[in-house]
């Protein structure tokens, strides 16, 4: 091309709200977030501030940018968060229908905290309902139950529900919010009959303590929550804070949890039942 002008202009990202969240990632064919092959829609924004958060770029609802050094003194900018209409997301989800059918998969809304955007999920749900696509929501449990009943009940097939710390004060210290609402919502969801998979992230010194895990075990038992899984700690947050030009609020261990430690906690947890 004769001139060096860029024939393309960067998009402007609008301010998000409950109907119009930003999507910071959209993954096709995941097997990590629920049964079968799944499309995972990552929505930006979270009311919690977990010290170990492995997706710190998901915490604030508005657009942000990762900056990494490029060749020489150049910098590479990578925008985080893209405005997508519910129609577009629904089309992305519907695309993989044959693969959901082949594998027993579906869509998972994750974040951040997707339950901040129930109207948006509701709009998508309306569009994919006819195809019978299995819907999962990956949540911290910190959401408005009444709004859920009004907008989403009956649409969601499965909750991937994080349980972190049973002690309310410690929960507040580690995540910025108390756990009362979270536990309350979980009990109500259970009673409503929806499928729930409880997930406990194993964070050394925060959640992975004998005291906390046995407390979780008794809560789970009391409420008859049959499906529980433990997730090993994965230190991807530190780097991302740096790429956003900030320091991690708390410096977390740099190494992922090794298999033997993970299995030790698993054995301990099982022994609580």
């Amino acid at each position, binding site marked *: *091309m004769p001139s060096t002008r860029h024939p393309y202009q960067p998009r402007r990202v609008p301010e998000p709200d409950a109907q119009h969240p930003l999507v910071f990632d959209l993954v*096709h064919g*995941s097997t990590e977030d629920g049964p079968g*092959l799944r499309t995972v829609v990552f929505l930006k924004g979270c009311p919690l501030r977990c010290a170990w958060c492995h997706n710190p770029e998901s915490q604030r609802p508005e657009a942000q940018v990762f900056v990494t050094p490029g060749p020489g003194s150049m910098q590479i900018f990578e925008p985080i968060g893209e405005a997508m209409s519910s129609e577009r997301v629904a089309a992305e989800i519907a*695309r993989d229908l*044959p693969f959901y*059918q*082949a*594998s027993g998969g579906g869509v998972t809304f994750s974040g951040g905290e997707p339950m901040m955007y129930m109207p948006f999920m509701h709009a998508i749900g309306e569009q994919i309902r006819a195809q019978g696509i299995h819907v999962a929501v990956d949540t911290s449990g910190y959401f408005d139950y009444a709004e859920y009943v009004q907008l989403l009940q009956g649409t969601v097939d499965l909750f991937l529900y994080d349980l972190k710390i049973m002690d309310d004060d410690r929960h507040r210290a580690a995540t910025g919010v108390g756990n009362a609402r979270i536990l309350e919502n979980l009990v109500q969801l259970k009673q409503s009959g929806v499928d729930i998979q409880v997930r406990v992230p194993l964070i050394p010194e925060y959640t992975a303590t004998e005291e906390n895990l046995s407390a979780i075990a008794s809560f789970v038992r009391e409420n008859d929550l049959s499906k529980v899984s433990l997730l090993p700690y994965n230190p991807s947050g530190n780097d991302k804070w740096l790429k956003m030009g900030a320091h991690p609020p708390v410096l977390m261990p740099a190494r992922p949890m090794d298999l033997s430690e993970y299995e030790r906690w698993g054995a301990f947890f099982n022994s609580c039942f």
Partner: protein
Amino acid sequence: MSRMLLAPDAALEALSKRSLEESPRLHRLKTGYLDIIERRNGKGVEVCVERALLITKSMRAPENARDPMVIRRAKAINDYLSNREIHFHDDNLLAGATTSKEMGAPVYPEFLGMSIWPELDQISTRTSNPQKLSAEDAMALNLEVFPYWMDKTVLERTRTRLTQESSDTLLALDLMERVSFFINGGGAVISHTVPYFQDVLKHGLLKMIDEATRMEHAASGAVSPDAAAKAHFYRAMQISMHGILAYANNLRDKADRLGLETMRDVLTQVPAHPATSFHQAVNALWLCHVAILAENVNMAMSPGRLDQILYPYYCMDAEKCTTHESKQQLIDRALELIGCLWFKIADNTNLVPESAEKMFGGAGSVPAVTVGGIDRQEEDAVNDLTYLMLKATQMLSIRDPNVNARLHLDKNPPEYQEWIAQTILKTRAIPAVYNDEVVIASLVGQKIKLEDARDYAIVGCVEPTTSGQSFAETSAILLNLTAAMDMTLNEGNRPPLELEGHNPINPHFISLEGIDTFEEFLAAFRLQLEFLVDQSVSLANALGESHRDWLPSPLLSCFFCGPMTHGKDLTDGGATYNSSGATHVGFADVCDSLNAIEWLATRYDEDEDRDENPFEVMRDAVAHDFEGYEELRQLILAQAPKFGSLSSNGHGNIAQRNAQWLITLLFDLYQHKDNARGGVYRPAFWTMTNHAGLGQVGRALPSGRKAKQVFSSGITPVSQSAKDLLAAYNAVGGLCRLDHEVGSVKYPIPGGIALNMKYTPFFHSLDNPHYVKGFRDLITGYFGAGGMQVQFTVQDYGTLLEAKEHPERFPDLIVRVSGYSAYFKDLNEAMQNELITRSQYDLFARKAVLLNQTKGESS
């Protein structure tokens, strides 16, 4: 259909655990086979001149000269079969061999055999794929065989006729001889079909000869203009079949002399009489296959659905088994016989001159075997033999036969899916998998009766046709789509090529200066594509007429539905169904070129400061191989929509729309073209190794591909461009079954596709249920999305790079070119590079592992 002796799950489980070492005979045969392909212990592939010598002698004989051609051909084949040398090179249970060598390349001077003429003195010692030829045999070809055929090959007969008629088709011939526009398979082969073996197994050759005799008498008595021709044809059928009997008798006598009693007894019964056991049926089928290769080139002559054809005979044996022990023995024996048949089918290869290595290097004779799927009544057709054949394929892990597994998602049992996945993961490449629903619907769209469509088998690489009924000539046309792109950008010309008296090559073109919109560009492209389709069809038809006049196939006609009833040779339209195939090179490259052009046109449209014509900008960039346009090239690579990426940047739909446009256009163009036998052309997308060969000499493309790079294979997205595995599967599936318009479903690729997928191997994959399940789910999901076919190479970049550098370390590494399987070491460099750079997908992440990423990691 269901499992019989393998009905208990334990029996199937036990079979899955069998190893090659437990079958000493197969183990020995495999060692011998490896000696040949690895050229150990003085062994190797040999050129076999026996066929060429005997057939030429018969054709030269003055006493035959006045016979009609169909009878001359039959006599020649009979002479060859009756006078062949008889050898038993090893302890294979089956009698009969394609050539007189352990692994031989037969010479077919009627077609392209003479292309090795200049190399007769070097073919034994050349570095790539040497084929041994004694000085004496070379001299026999030079002095006795080739001189006779110089003016009598299909191509030269066609040239002579076209010249006499001053036909317009001479332009097409000129274009074909420029190699890079299109290639018509008719000059090289007729074959590419699936014969019908049921009659010879059920009735025996003697009955079939009786029938032909009766028909000859009936025809002779009739008063119709074609009565004489019919009588000649029936006569030729008898002569051909007597040749097979003579060959079988000679084999029997030799077996008798050597004290091979079982073999002698088998040959006493078949192929003259009906088969009464599995062993007899397998040997009868093999002898007929050998005879067919005596007449027709050993290229893509495909035995078909062997698990169905042979099943009644397996059942005859099984019914006699009462004890557990005898059942077990039968299973062992059947597995051994299938293994023996696999080695027999692999006993021959093609004669490849060095000059053709670039285009066709590494090809075997691609005999396709098909297993599984449903039967004519839409019932599950998977049976004991299906599993035994998959097992033999796993145990032997050799290139030929080209095994294909049909899969019906609703009818076939889950354990069969599991077996397919296991077999692919064990062999790293075999079988290719076909979606019954989409294939059958595609064939029904070709006016094939539903029952017949359900009985489809694969020909050669990937082409589905109804077994024994469809003379499908699937290699009639191989068209380079990028030539049409070149011609669009160059006003109907293709620099630097010049054709005397044809400037521009296509008189109809739209000049880029006059083009304002992408739609107009599409119209300009369409003009060029139409021209090439017209040209290639006219030459394919001319070659078809030459087949009919000069190379009738009375022997193959005996093993087909139609000729006996119609009294017409296959080459004359005697079969029940008569189609031709047209396949295409550079599909994804042309799609991405259209995408890039549309993308650029849109950018320029949106930008008021730009008043250049984007189409001319693109032309200039391509003409300069992007020198001085590197920035544009990088932007195209990064931002223009790509075929196989449906989502994320919102451009995906553009890519899919353009791909659908091209697929639909080709479908409409070919479906209105008649071939020489009263059928139509079926578009297909498989490329063998031609995408590498043609790419290597191709000029730059608007897609950002620079000159001399390989093209994408078959219908596969351009390497390293489709990063999301599910998107790639969806994109291809959405072309095989077009349902973008509500209420109208169309199957626009009846000729077949080859979708190449490369997966990162997972070394404990066989013990890892997640890997096997993931593997299976992806196939099923892709089929649900409309996908017709998929084939795998389970290898990573590193291994293939190492295999290129140290071929001796990986002598039997099998990979998938576009269609058949090949030994990596046999491929030319361009094709090896294509395999290395082909996108490798991580099955767990369902994402492409990009080549430069791994390079960075390993260094």
